[in-house]
């Protein structure tokens, strides 16, 4: 099978993300990349745990003063749902239904964007209400480094998916772009998994003290 071959619903392979050698390489290479990313985030989690609530003076706010459940819960739901919608998109990709894939990717992007807006609001809230900033304390540095790094990944993922959607909007699916969509969705799931850990380690553990 070649990358520039034309397909119909009947001839489209079962695993288009791994149908050519280039695609197989991309698929495996991206998993390795996510392995490296895991260590990257693990390092940031370790830094956060070491520096949690480490502030220079008693006036600084600690984790238990900052976080509020409703906002963080909403953010979590948005991102978890966006992971589900990206699964739907990949389902339609495997069934050679380009329009529906684009639709579900679009919904994924909107949910991700909503998450990002709430995160901006959240950071803004901490900075203005609690004077909890990147430079105010070691706790602040570690918090914004970890959560902000994740937010940066979300922003990059959104740009990536939008770029793929726009680039391929007129030409439909092929074995050349199917692996591209697939690894972008893998990336999106990874971001979601990292958030589950952030929700647990930063927010839940932060609120119980």
């Amino acid at each position, binding site marked *: 099978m070649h990358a520039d071959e034309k397909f119909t619903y009947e001839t489209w392979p079962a695993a288009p993300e791994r149908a050519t050698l280039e695609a197989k390489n991309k698929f495996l290479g991206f998993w390795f990349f996510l392995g490296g990313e895991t260590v990257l985030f693990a390092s940031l989690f370790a830094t956060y745990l070491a520096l949690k609530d480490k502030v220079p003076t008693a006036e600084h706010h600690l984790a238990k003063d900052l976080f509020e459940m409703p906002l963080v819960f909403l953010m979590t739901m948005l991102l978890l749902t966006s992971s589900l919608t990206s699964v739907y998109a990949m389902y339609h990709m495997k069934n050679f239904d380009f329009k529906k894939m684009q639709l579900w990717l679009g919904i994924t992007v909107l949910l991700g964007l909503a998450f990002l807006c709430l995160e901006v609001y959240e950071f803004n809230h901490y900075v203005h209400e609690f004077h909890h900033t990147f430079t105010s304390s*070691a706790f602040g540095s570690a918090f914004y480094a970890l959560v902000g790094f994740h937010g940066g990944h979300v922003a990059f993922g959104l740009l990536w998916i939008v770029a793929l959607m726009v680039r391929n909007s007129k030409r439909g699916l092929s074995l050349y772009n199917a692996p591209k969509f697939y690894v972008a969705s893998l990336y999106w799931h990874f971001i979601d998994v990292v958030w589950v850990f952030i929700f647990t380690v930063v927010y839940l553990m932060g609120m119980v003290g």
Partner: protein
Amino acid sequence: MSTYAQKKGAGAVIWDFLTTVDHKKIAILYLIAGGFFFIVGGLEAMFIRIQLAIPDNNFVSAGVYNEILTMHGTTMIFLAAMPLVFAFMNAVMPLQIGARDVAFPFLNSLGFWLFFFGGVFLNLSWFLGGAPDAGWTSYASLSLASEGHGIDFYVLGLQISGAGTLIGGINFLVTIINMRAPGMTYMRMPLFTWSTFVVSALILFAFPPLTIGLFLMMFDRMFGANFFDHTMGGNTVIWEHFFWIFGHPEVYILILPAFGIFSEIFATFSRKRLFGYSSMVFATVLIGFLGFMVWAHHMFTTGLGPIANAIFAVATMAIAVPTGIKIFNWLFTMWGGSIKFTTPMLYAIAFIPSFVAGGVTGVMLASAAADYQYHDTYFVVAHFHYVIVGGVVFGLLAGTHFYWPKMFGTMLNEFLGKISFWLFLIGFHLTFFIQHFLGLMGMPRRIFTFLPDQGFETGNLISTIGAFFMAISVIVLLINIIMTSVKNEKVGNDPWGDGRTLEWALPSPPPFYNFKQLPLVRGLDAYWLEKMEGKKGMTPAEPLGDIHMPNNSFIPFVISLGLFIAAFGAMYRAEHSWGLPVLIAGMLVTLLSMLVRSVKDDHGYHIHKEDLIDDNDKGVKA
């Protein structure tokens, strides 16, 4: 070759190297750039030894000495040893597994240019207000107190080149898993390929902690964060942990490929199958695994407590077991073989006692209680130079002589090679053996001078004389390289006559598509097997067909250039108004060129069957 081997002008050759995605050309780029930085780092080493030749010397000032010492270590590890290792991995590994290229040729090029721009950025510090001066480990308390931009150059330069290394690691992993020729099972892979495989996995998991450590340092120094500042609640030990969680696997990232090169050389020039192949594979994997369990032995005196120290001491000593397995296997490979004493083989034989000496002092240093005495003395300096020079540099020099004909199509002169070997061996032991005793007598490392009448004079003078031997040896090697390149006497597929693995079945240098037809691999030492059955080359595993090749690309250069520009912006942001715009502009260059790469289809091209048949008909031997 008919349509492809046209004579090109100098401009076309340079453009070709700037845009190449061919693993063999990228290997040459790595070799040249790594060789250049090796000479820079070597000059820095000479300045260190000249300054320490006599007591109370003032060849350089204390401040400049700190910069030279820092840059010597940083340059040698990150900008000389790493790229030279990558040069051989790129040149040899795809050939050894019977592949036409690596899995991601574009990323291969990107990895090189990231390393190159990172290295250039780091070394520009010499001309822009002073080099980093907190040691190659750059411990946070020292780094945060360091004035000027030296440490910023260190942080940003290593960040850029580290990204390149990570990309290279992923690339090699996928190449080895997905692109082996028919019949090339894992347990038929040559040992150098195995060590490339394990090392790539180490890179994948060891470089991200360094990336984070460098990010935190960058945030602290350039963006007002407080990770390491204890007055703001920070903790300086976090840097030590990240640095060594990276730093210890890093030394295995350097030594395992050298082990791989030696394994090939011992088998080739003993003209015997490598003894205990499967135990060699097992030992390589085990060393890679244990390499992640021992980082805190660099921090015995930090104060982690007796339990942590004891655990890390035992784990460290355990590494001596798989390493010992390897040493015995190499000895048994030579046992009963009909040994040819070529230059690479001389390096390999000299490596065994040198490296064992470094390993023995390693076990001494691993006992935490005793380490309180050795810590930060010349004993440590002697130890790590015995393993890194006696192991890695010997391996790289052996590899240079061994693989030179495969990379360039001409043999280095054996007579000059042996002269430089003997000079290097004598110089190496002269320089570093005495440092064990200087250390045990109490000479601390990283001092810029010492006083007379403390018993350090003779030892330091001997050490400096040894360093000159090594310098002369490198000059002889350079003369050798220039002479053989000018003469350029072409050699055939298997210039050593005893090649065992697939790369020796190909012309030297191989055509850009490597294998016209992918070879059928029937066992370990695939080419040797065929030769023993009286065949001239490999049996093809496929009919002659079109070959798919990747297009050259200038984008990797531009992506790396963007980060290079952005790094200047990040560094001068606080004091110059142009800093922030330059930072943003640089990042935009990088991100936009990534976007271009993403949206512009790149299907590569095909070499047609007819053009390949052409070669055979005319009887061209490339």
